[in-house]
Each structure stands twice: as structure tokens, then as C-alpha cells.
């Protein structure tokens, strides 16, 4: 089972930082697993 996607949201203008789990909409917008970012000869 995948780990939850917990990310930081930092506003450089206000200095506010919030740490939370991504919403379903944000997760749906992530690159899909089929979009392999590399074909390295060793597992990365």
C-alpha cells in the first residue's frame, strides 16, 4: 500500500507553512505511474 502523500505548502509572501495530505483532486493531477521519468540501467 502506498504511503499517503503528505506535502508542505509554503507561502513565500506570508511565511505561512501548512503540512497536509494532498486532496483527491491534487492526487489525480499528479504524473501517472506510466509516465516513467527515466530508463536508468539500475533501479532508482
Amino acid at each position: 500500500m502506498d504511503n499517503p502523500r503528505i506535502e508542505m505548502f509554503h507561502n513565500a509572501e506570508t511565511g505561512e507553512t501548512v503540512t497536509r495530505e494532498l486532496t483527491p483532486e491534487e492526487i489525480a493531477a499528479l504524473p501517472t505511474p506510466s509516465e516513467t521519468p527515466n530508463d536508468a540501467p539500475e533501479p532508482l
Partner: protein
Amino acid sequence: MAVKTFTTGEVLTASDTNTYLANSGLVYVTSASLSGQTGVNIDNCFTSTFRNYLIVADFTTSASETVIYQMRSGGTTNTGSNTDSLQTYMIWGSTTVYANQLTNQNYAYFGYGNTNGAGVALTLFGPQLAKYTYSASENPMADYRSTSWSKHNVATQYDGIRIASYGTNTITGRILVYGYRIS
């Protein structure tokens, strides 16, 4: 006054000191310290104050992981298939150069990480300008060294960036954003 040559015995005044501090080449914008998150979204870090930016990161990942970045605008991550990337990398102990590419994606290479640490220096060219944004990065880490270039094929003014694991491994480390002073 960005540069002044002092002569022997001349007094360094508060005014001169403040001018030098204000006119340094790289200007700190913001930073984020991650401790076991899968990524960070930094908003309102790209403004009209600067044209080009340097993002410097040192981090570990909970297991070997590809770290990517995505541009953000108005608090929303880019989802358009508008980013192309090229990358070369070499494995320590070998002179063989490997290459990767990505076309028409919504993300670009940031670098690789693992439990033994990694560093990334990513230069972003004109992210806040209404034209294509380009980037170049260097990424030495425990297993590889990689160099990546990316172009965002849309004239969007971005004000933020998301830096995150491609998978679900977590990141611990610090990411700093600097602006290149333009005058």
C-alpha cells in the same frame, strides 16, 4: 552602487555596508525544510523583482527516488502536457554517459535522491515572465551524477514551484530559493 573600490585607510560606512548587502548578486527569497514529507509546494516565490532564480537543495529520500518539479501558478500545480526535459547521467566508477528524455509532460526532472543524500542546484530562467520557462540543473548524489535541462512550452507566468518525489518515498532536507539581482 553595486561595486566600489576602497582605498587604504578609507572608512567602511554603514551606508556602504547596507548598499553592499542590498546589492548582492544572489538574494535570498525563501526556504523550506522538509522532514519526511513527499514534497513541498512553494508559492509566491517568483515575482517581478527578479527574472532568474537559483534553487539549491540538499536532501535525503527514504529510499532511492526520482525527484521532480512542477511549476505552479496562483496556488495550482501545472497539469498541462507542456514540458520537455533532457537529462544525462553517469554512475560513479564509470565514464559511460546515459541519457533520458521526457516530452509533453506536466513535470520535469529535479534530481535523484537516496538515503545517503543528494544535492541539486536548479537554475530557472524567467519563470515569472510571460514566455517559455527554461531550467538547468546539476545533481550529484550517492549513486549518480545527473544534469538536466527543461523547457516549459507555454508562455505562462508562474509564481511557484512544487518539488516532490515521483513515487511516494519521503524527502528530508532543505530547499532554498534565491533570486538573481538584475541591477
